[in-house]
């Protein structure tokens, strides 16, 4: 059973937002909304600073609170790789999932349903990388099966220091950041 995830190298990311634009065009995300975004965290005082730039999105958690919170079953784990998806037809727009997501990854689409990153499941099913991964000019993003010990993502996790976001939330996120 595959478990899809991403490994993102913050040492290479320049925060250019190409991933954000690519997602918007690939998935026709309406103006004013985005499914992925850039977060910049600065610590220290000038000039001794540390900055981490991260491309963030739904973490496609293995223990996803949005799936548990959904009263209709619209939010669900996809058969392929455990990708967390929202069935637009089943969604009643109650926003329980939005309240439960510790990553603020979801929004209400102007057409009334809740929307978020799909890991570009339509591409992944064809063996392609998600759009954000495929466009990145710094090659800082990697997509693959975290359950496969030989996958590129696992090799990266085994060889580099990394962290996930809000591990304390206990949601078992599947996006990891190399530092």
């Amino acid at each position: 059973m595959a478990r899809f995830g991403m490994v993102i190298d913050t040492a290479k990311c320049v925060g250019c937002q190409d991933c954000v634009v690519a997602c918007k065009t690939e998935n026709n995300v309406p103006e004013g909304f985005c499914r992925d975004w850039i977060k910049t965290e600065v610590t220290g005082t000038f000039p001794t600073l540390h900055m981490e730039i991260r491309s963030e999105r739904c973490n496609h958690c293995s223990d996803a609170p949005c799936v548990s919170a959904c009263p209709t079953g619209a939010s669900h784990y996809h058969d392929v790789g455990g990708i967390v998806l929202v069935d637009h037809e089943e969604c009643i727009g109650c926003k329980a999932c939005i309240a439960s997501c510790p990553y603020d990854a979801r929004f209400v689409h102007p057409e009334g349903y809740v929307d978020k990153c799909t890991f570009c499941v339509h591409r992944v099913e064809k063996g392609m990388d998600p759009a954000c991964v495929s466009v990145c000019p710094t090659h800082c993003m990697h997509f693959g099966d975290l359950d496969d010990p030989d996958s590129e993502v696992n090799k990266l996790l085994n060889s580099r220091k990394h962290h996930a976001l809000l591990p304390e939330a206990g949601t078992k996120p599947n996006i990891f950041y190399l530092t």
Partner: protein
Amino acid sequence: MAISRRRFLKITGATFGAVAATSAINPVIKGAKKIEEKTVKPVKGIVKIPTYCDICFWKCGAVAYLKDGKLWKIEGNPEDPLSKGRLCPRGTGGIGAHYDENRLKAPLLRKGSRGKEEFVQVTWDEALDFIARKMKKIKSDYGPESMVLFSHGVGGTFFKHLMKAYGTPNLTAPSFAQCRGPREIGFDLTYGDAIGSPERTDLKNAECIVLIGSHIGENMHNTQVQEFSAAVEKGASIIVVDPRFSVAASKAKYYLPIKPGTDIALLLAWMNVIVNEKLYDEEFINKYAFGFEQFKYEISKYTPEWAYIETTIEPELIRKTAREMARYKPATIVHPGRHTTWYGNDTQRSRAIALLNALMGNWGKKGGFYLPYKYEIPKYPYPPYPKPAREAADNPNHKYPFAEGEKLSTGLREATLTEKPYPIKGWFVYGTNLTQSLPNRKETIEAIQKLDLIVVVDVVPSEIAGWADVVLPESVYLERYDDLNTPLFREGFVSLRQPVVDSPHDQKPNWWIAKKLGEKLGLQKYFPWKNIEEYLDTRLKLAGLSLKELKKKGVIKAPEEPVYLDKNEDPEFYTPTGKIEFYSLQLKEKGFDPVPKYTRPEEPPAGYFRLLYGRAPVHTFSKTQSNKLLSDLMQENELWINADVARRMGIKNGEYVRLKNQDGIVSNKVKAKVTERIRTDCVFMVHGFGQQSKMYRKTFEKGASDSQLITRYKVDPIMGGTGMNVNFVTIEWEV
């Protein structure tokens, strides 16, 4: 080795003609016409068409996707050596240019006074007849030299051709005197060769990269960013010098938070250490340097302790970073930057960078400056152009002795204002928003008032369009062909821009506009081709290729050539001495310092900050702000201000403020970005915002304009570049 290198052409002098009388402006007013929207024939399913991007000037190879006949997305072309299959965010958002609701839709003729943005819609025939009539009159009254073409980007090709055929030598682009000019001249004076675009920097193989005033990563020149990131991955040692903790600084092993305007002091001190400690490539210097002993003597006084006072960089850090560079030579590169018009001493600054690189012995070496080559495609066999009776008006009496090859845009503005050395009566403006791209907007507007004709060709109603007599709406790059792209690069190739979709309204491609106008001016012999396909195919056939083949592939590569010198191969330097000129007799002869010297820049008065500007990854100049995909990511710019300073002044993050410069100019409101990432003596904003064109609705007064505040500029006496980091501002609360 058949390596073609870019060389500057020296322009020979000519005599100056007499001054004729001025003519009055007589605008034609026509009723507005309704434009019928075109409909695109839908083709079911996905269609992929290769082309090259135009959101900036990098010209990345791309593949556009149509879904059921509608433009869906655009990706990098994997075959293209510049993009390698990946575009930058602007390129990825390029389809937003086609869908932009703010686009110019039909030709416009001015109705009210200039700058009032009052126009009537006219037909192409009416617009071009008006322009042709005016241009003919200018030619007969003042001579063809009285027309100036300001252009930017490959789309200017056919207008350059038109203007040469018309007979003017005054063709210019602000990308020289307002951007990369000092760098090209600084390197040309040192190596006899320019850096060129794309830069010939072998970043991906460098083991040590020094960025001084170059914010790669925020500046999204695609190949540069890709190679920089590859170098970071390989563990290259990065040294970043910037008053602002840039994105690149966050990747650096050493960050040097330099006081703005003191780069030359640091560069001299670095060279002082490298020479004193004999860390340079001795064999290389012995073989290829001219005037090294004089240089050595000149720089002996610039110790790190001396530089500390000027730059605020600790002497030990200067020594450590100098040794770091030397450790990795020749795979160390001090990036020459691109936009280098800052303090008016910029050619000497670039010379110092060129010399520091020379100490690393990196010319023609892996990880240094590679030797680029190109796919040689012959030019179209046009008849010869008429020889202008007068030389270009941008640099009378060669006031700036090394302003060679390219014309000074600010020089032509000056000539327009003063009518010296002869009157300039017409401006044809293509793809450059002059009120934002030239310093001191007031001078630009005053110069416009002296004109009999100003034509602007653009895709959106930019500020400069608001000042035009005639505005011509151009098709965006996804709707047109352009000339072939054959840059000097690490791989020679030819790439094609071709239409992917129809223009939605009455927009026309530049080649069509130039040809039609040429015919109306009686210059039809210069436009012998029926359409651009015929032009492109003729050029390609001369190189044994065809348009049909290139349309399919988008990119064709030239046979591979070496880009590094062989072990025993000598580099060629096209300087008068045939060597790298550490001591420049050329400069000395014209009264300039033969070895770069440091002069302390003017300090901001008490309570003032130095105004710095730069780029953001999602916008190009002032031309992408109405693209919905990109404006969604950045709708306005911010004012970067040091957190301590903001605390003292009581400025909160996200609060709107205004800036007032030393000449009393007050900016639009701009959001304060209170951050640790900048020095206390300067503030920073991204260029291209705060536009004043009411027609350009989506951008009107969004953020503040650095250009508006750049009322002062310091001209580089060597080549006429305009140093623009010499303005000081105070911060006022938004009321």
